[in-house]
Each structure stands twice: as C-alpha cells, then as structure tokens.
C-alpha cells in the first residue's frame, strides 16, 4: 500500500523458551496509514505494548516483518529508525534541563547547534512551555513533564510517533485536556500517531482508527463508530463501552430469547436455523415505556446527565437501559416495578463468538 506508514506482516513475538514460552504477539498483520491517529486498544497483557516496542525497535520480532514506509526495519536498531516514542513513565533525562531534553534527539542526529536551538524553541512553543526551558524535569508537574516528553519525541520530526499509555499517570481533568492537546498536535504536525491505551473512552474520542487486541491477536480494526456500533465479537462489544449481552436461538429469521420473547434482528450473520447465538445491544438503544418486552426494575443508578436502569427479564437476564435524566433527576421507576421496553430498530447485533 502506497499510503502505509507502518505495516506489520505476520509479526510474532515470543518470550522465554520451552514450557514457559509466552506468546505476546501471534501472527499480527496490520497496516497503519500515513497521517492517521491509530490506537491500539486492549486490556493489559494483550500485546499492544509489545507491538509498539517492535515498531520502536526495542524488541525484534520472533518471526514476521515490520515495515516503515516500504522499508523492512525488523532488524534495524532503534537509533536508526525515524520513529520516536512518548514513554508511559515519560523517561525524561533528569540531568538535562527541558531545552536539552527536547533537543537531545536533534543533537544526536548531528544537527548544528543553531538549528537545534531554533527547533527546540518551536517545539516548546508548540506545547506551550517556553517559560520552562531552563527547568529540570523534576521541577515540573506531571502534565508539564508529559508535554516535555511530547516535545522531545516530536522535535526530530519522526515519520511515526509512538505513544505508550502516555496519559495514564494524569488525573482525569488533565487527561481530558491532554487528549485535546494530542489531537491538536497531531493535526498541526501531520505526523502519524500510534497510541496505546487500555482506556476505551480515550480510544473512541481520539482515534481515526482503532485496533482492538486480546491475547496477542488483533480482533478488529476500524473507525470508532464502526468498532462501537458493529463489534465483531462478544469481547469487543464488552470491552468498548457498555453492552447488554443476550443469549438466544435463531427461529424463522428472528431470535428467540431465553425469556421466550421473539425479536427481530437485521442480520443473522450467517447463523443457521435453530443455532444458539449471542446478541449485543447498547444500553442507550433500550427504550423503556412501551414495547413487547417486559422487565422488572432491579436498580436505578444516577450518573448526572444519565440514569441507568437495570431490568430483569423473565429468565433473569439483566438488561441495562440508559436514559437521559429528567430535570427533576428522578426517572420515576421504583424498584420492583414491571415495565415494558423495546430495542431500537437495527440496534440488536448478532455476534460471532
């Protein structure tokens, strides 16, 4: 592909040997396009950081290749790769001040001093830290250190910027700020960002595309809307946002639920007549008040803008409905009350398992 920034072809990574072998990556193939904000999303231990380290060059693949542009860089040492990393721990050099930290990569590349200074000034302006050039990293707050780490990694104008859970050490408010900041920087520099996170909300709000990983395998690659609305399997559906999972059996092009209700689905996903299937419905796609389904209210949880209502169907299957909280704050559903509800048309998906 001409517009590929990074490509992994059947990349595998194994640690250890013999009986204690750990397969961190299994035959992963992936193309990350030039200029996109790509997120590797998954729980800890899913192999997302390993994949990042293969691209950075800190690890070599056990088999398969990593391409940058169209060059095979699988065996290239990290200091030769035009790729820079923002580390989870920031890894700022404590013996250098902010300007020296930001200029480190340029100096190592043999840029003349004047050029380094000019570029460092521009980078510090980009992350709004001009006033801190002479400070040591230890004298900065977490958010400021984060921005220094960003400026340092962006300064040498890498082809790809790798970000290893860079926001996980920040508090919520700062994290939201930095999310916007990262998007802005990516937009302004046009550099391909590969972002690793276990936070699905972060992934949804920031990414152009997301790769969902588990156990060293990429399960699904797609835009945030696609991943959220059309998850390929139960794990993706469960991991991204909240989901109601319902068990059922196909019957005449529809699905018979455990509670005995028959509901329509858009696409049976090739499931044979009478086969057991798993259904997914997002809580915001559940409408309370009218419909063919019935549930007993077991709990309501107030979240501010939203209220979650937990319903139990006849077979004890739990369904969560998300509603906008009314001005009074009380949705008026008492515990134990039986209500009618329905799923929004087209919202029920049959999952591959």
């Amino acid at each position, binding site marked *: 592909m001409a517009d590929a920034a990074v490509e992994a072809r059947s990349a595998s990574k194994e640690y250890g040997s013999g009986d204690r072998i750990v397969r961190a990556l299994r035959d992963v193939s992936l193309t990350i396009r030039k200029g996109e904000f790509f997120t590797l999303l998954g729980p800890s231990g899913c192999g997302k950081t390993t994949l990042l380290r293969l691209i*950075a*060059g*800190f690890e070599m693949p056990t088999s398969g290749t990593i391409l940058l542009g169209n060059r095979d860089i699988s065996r290239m*040492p*990290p*200091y*030769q790769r035009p*790729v*820079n*990393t923002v*580390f989870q*721990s920031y*890894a*700022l*050099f*404590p*013996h250098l001040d902010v300007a020296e930290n930001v200029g*480190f*990569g340029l100096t*190592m*590349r043999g840029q003349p001093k004047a050029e380094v200074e000019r570029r460092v000034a521009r980078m510090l302006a980009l992350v709004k830290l001009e006033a801190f050039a002479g400070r*040591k*990293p*230890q*004298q900065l707050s977490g958010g400021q250190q984060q921005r220094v780490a960003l400026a*340092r*990694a962006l300064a*040498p104008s890498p082809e790809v910027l790798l970000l290893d859970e860079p926001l996980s050490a920040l508090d919520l408010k700062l994290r939201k700020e930095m999310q916007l900041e990262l998007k802005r920087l990516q937009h302004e520099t046009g550099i391909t960002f590969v972002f690793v996170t276990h936070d699905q909300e972060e992934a949804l709000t920031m990414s152009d595309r997301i790769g969902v990983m588990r156990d060293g395998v990429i399960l699904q690659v797609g835009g945030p809307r696609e991943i959220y609305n059309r998850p390929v399997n139960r794990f993706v559906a469960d991991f991204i946002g909240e989901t109601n999972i319902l068990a059922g059996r196909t019957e005449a092009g529809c699905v018979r639920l455990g509670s005995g209700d028959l509901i329509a689905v858009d696409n049976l996903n090739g499931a044979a007549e009478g086969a057991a299937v798993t259904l997914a419905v997002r809580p915001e796609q559940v409408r309370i008040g009218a419909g063919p389904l019935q549930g007993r209210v077991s709990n309501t949880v107030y979240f501010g803008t939203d209220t979650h209502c937990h319903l139990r169907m006849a077979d004890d299957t739990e369904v969560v409905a998300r509603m906008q909280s009314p001005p009074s704050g009380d949705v008026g559903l008492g515990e134990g009350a039986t209500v009618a509800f329905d799923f929004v048309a087209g919202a029920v998906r049959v999952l591959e398992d």
Partner: protein
Amino acid sequence: MSAPTPSTARTGWILSIPALILLALGASGPLLIVVVYAFLEPGEYSGVVWNFTTEAWFRVFFERDIFDDTVSMADAHLTIFWRSVKLSVLTTLITFAIGFPTAWFIATRPAGQRALWLFLITIPFWTNLLIRTFAIMEVIRNQGLLNTALIGLGVIGEPIQILYTDTAVLIGMAYVYLPLMVLPLYAAIDRFDFRLVEAGYDLYATRWRVLRRVILPIVKPGIVAGSILVFVPSLGAYVTPRILGGGKNMMIGNFIELQFGQGRNWPLGAALSLILLAIVLVALLAYVRVTSSDRQDG
C-alpha cells in the same frame, strides 16, 4: 512536634560528651601533635627538639648541599610525590574500568541474586591485607603462577619481571581497592532508571552515546564517591608498595615511615603527613562540589 526544651538540649550535650572526648583524644589530638612537630627541629636520634623552625617544610621541597649549603630542588621527594599521585590516579582508573562493568552486571541481575554477587565482591575484606598482598606476590613473582603459566603455554620464553616494579604496586592496589569502587557504583547504578537507556536509543543515540550522554552523567555521584574511596587510601598506601614495590619504588606512605624510622627526622615526616592530608582534603572538596552542584540542579 514540640521544640526541644533547654533541658533536653543540655542533656543532649551531656550525653555526647564521651563521643566528644573520644574524638578529641583519637582524632584532633594526634593531628595537633603532627602539626606542632612539623614546626620543630629533629632530635639527634629520634623525637624532636623544642625549637620553632620551618626547616622541615623547606626540606620537603628543597635540599641543601652538605658541603657548600647550595640549595636545589629535592628531586627524590618530588619523584615520590609524583609516583604516589600517578599510581593512585592509575589505580582509580583501573578500578573504575573493571568496577563499572562489574557493578553494572550486579545491578542488572534479578533482585534475588544481587546479594550473592555483592557478597562475593566483599569476600576479600575478610582476609588480612598483608596476606592478600603476599598472595598477589605469589602470583606475579618470576617463578610464580603467572610466569609459569605463560612459559608453559609458550607465550614467553623468559619470566617477565613484574614484582618490585610500579606495575606490581598497581596490580596490588587495584586488587585491594576494587570493592571500594564497585560498592558505590553499584548503589548508583541500582537507582538508575533503565528506561532512560531506551529513551536514549529512541532519540538516535548509539550504545556508546547512551553510555556517555545518559548513563555516566546520571551515575556520576557514584563514580565520584568510588573514585574518592579508592584514591584516598591509594595515596596513603603503605603495605602494598612496601611488599610489591620492594625498597626502591616508594610511595608517600613509605617515605613518611622512613622519616620516623631510619631517617630519624620526625618533623619532616610530620610535614609530609600534612601534605598528604592536604591532597586528600582537596580531593574531598572536589567531591563535595561535584555532588552538591548536582543536588542544586535537581
């Protein structure tokens, strides 16, 4: 927290009196005697005559001709100073060259193994210095282990004369003081954040540059501490140069001993001791400056 009342402060002083007495008798007292002796005349056979003179200080650097009183530089003394400083600096460099990879190796072992490696490093401390020095002698003498092995392997035809040379002194001192270099280096490297090495690689620094630009500057306090711990006792070394260097290759320590013994010039010995002390103090001052500027910066 309550501020100490005057009475507890006074109790504190009273309680530290034994320590203060010990310090006065054990450290300050002898030093004072050395300072006083350095400004007295030597007695005929030994001891001092209580007449004030700066002759001893003069004799450190110059010598008077016995017959016509012409003054010339005391080349022999300066040679000894120079050799002492040279051998001490070389010892420091050698122990660093061997000690740094050793400390690095230990610090990168799994946590459970490190104690064992550190223990191995400190084993030589359990044996008397004299015995260890004789052991070195046994290895490097003409019919010793090293020469016999090299001749047996056909590398050399004749034994190499190592014993009673500066090289022998250097080997002996590097061996004796190596643990003093390894331990502070280990402490510094143990605190080092190894993720910074990856950050260095990531930012286009080769292995050599990561070592020069990232690792060494950060573990510098450990390097300085180890260097001081090796340099200071090397400079005053007495047993090692005496045994491995023979009689000819004296260092300051041996020369001072000579003045109090056969030389029968206690004031000169005292003056030389003070000069040794001054060199050590300069080294310590340099250490304090290097480490405190580090702390100021961050």
